[in-house]
């Protein structure tokens, strides 16, 4: 079962790197603790929900910032939601950009907001790719007959 062991090591290393580079934080560990035999897909499910929700929020943000007269309270409300959900799944870098984003909203700084929108889109797509890679690795391990290493 050499390949399974290799895959498992790959997974452990990969997760460690995501933490090390700040993509994920402790909250992601919390989520993994909530997964068990009765709910073996919990992390994938909640992260998928996060992806769905994030797409929606990013669309709303883009729309809100395209308006002739920007309603900063509305923008802020969306960012607040995004900050919350990213925090809930441990998407640390996304959360950080949201914090900066909210400051610009408070200042009613259009340029700052637009900049943050780009940044948050970028960070979101990065973490999304990372997580999808992570889930792929897990799938491969399971398919090869292995079990997921304990976190």
């Amino acid at each position, binding site marked *: 079962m050499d390949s399974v062991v290799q895959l498992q090591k790959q997974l452990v290393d990969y997760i460690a790197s995501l933490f090390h580079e700040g993509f994920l934080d*402790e909250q992601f560990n*919390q989520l993994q603790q*909530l997964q*068990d035999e009765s709910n073996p897909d919990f992390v994938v499910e909640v992260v998928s929900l996060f992806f769905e929700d994030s797409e929606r929020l990013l669309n709303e943000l883009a729309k809100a910032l395209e308006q002739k007269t920007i309603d900063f309270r509305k923008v802020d409300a969306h960012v607040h*939601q995004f900050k919350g959900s990213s*925090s809930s799944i*441990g998407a640390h870098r996304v959360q950080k950009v949201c914090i900066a984003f909210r400051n610009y909203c408070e200042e009613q700084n259009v340029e700052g907001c637009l900049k943050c929108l780009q940044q948050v889109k970028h960070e979101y797509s990065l973490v999304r790719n990372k997580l999808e890679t992570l889930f792929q690795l897990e799938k491969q391990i399971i398919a090869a007959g292995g079990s997921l290493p*304990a*976190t």
Partner: protein
Amino acid sequence: MSITGQVLRRNLPENVEVFDDSPSGSLELHVLAVDDSVVDRMVIERLLKISSCKVTTVESGTRALQYLGLDGEKGPVGFDGLKVNLIMTDYSMPGMTGYELLKKIKGSSVLREIPVVIMSSENVLARIDRCLEEGAEEFLLKPVKLSDVRRLKDFITRGEGKDSGERINHKRKREDDYASSSSPSSPSSSVLSASSSSSSASSSLSSSARLSKRAKLRNKD
């Protein structure tokens, strides 16, 4: 209406207190969780279920009051006949905030006995004070952890049947006592500090009555 979560149907007359005696012999709390975030609802539901609680989740304060029966005739029983033992609500929600929901619950002669816990991602002292003053049992910083839920559950199950006005000082211990996993959790601090992330200087800390009930502010790294 997006009420999710496992709501067990039982052939019981209404108003019967349902404290489930599951096979393991443990009592099951029924928690009503209120949060406008779909992601947070999923997480809190899982947190509660893994802690052997029954959960009903709703997306707003309005839905919560509907579930509890605004007219209050049925008491703190959901329309499906299950008594609610605890309400956990997000603070910042569109429409009715968690604070407004708290006020409505504490202002109702029938619902006020239900313990209410406020959850918020923002560590604002004035907000915490306001909620505690209005009768919230606890103020939890989001993201809510498993240890928070376990601690809450212990507190509530111990408190059932006692005088509901009694406040127990349940300081969160310094180390994460409940951590049974190997995850490297940052130590939770029970220090009642004037958090540096809060904008308001905390002269309100001088109120010693508040101190014993002040939420356990977690010092974020």
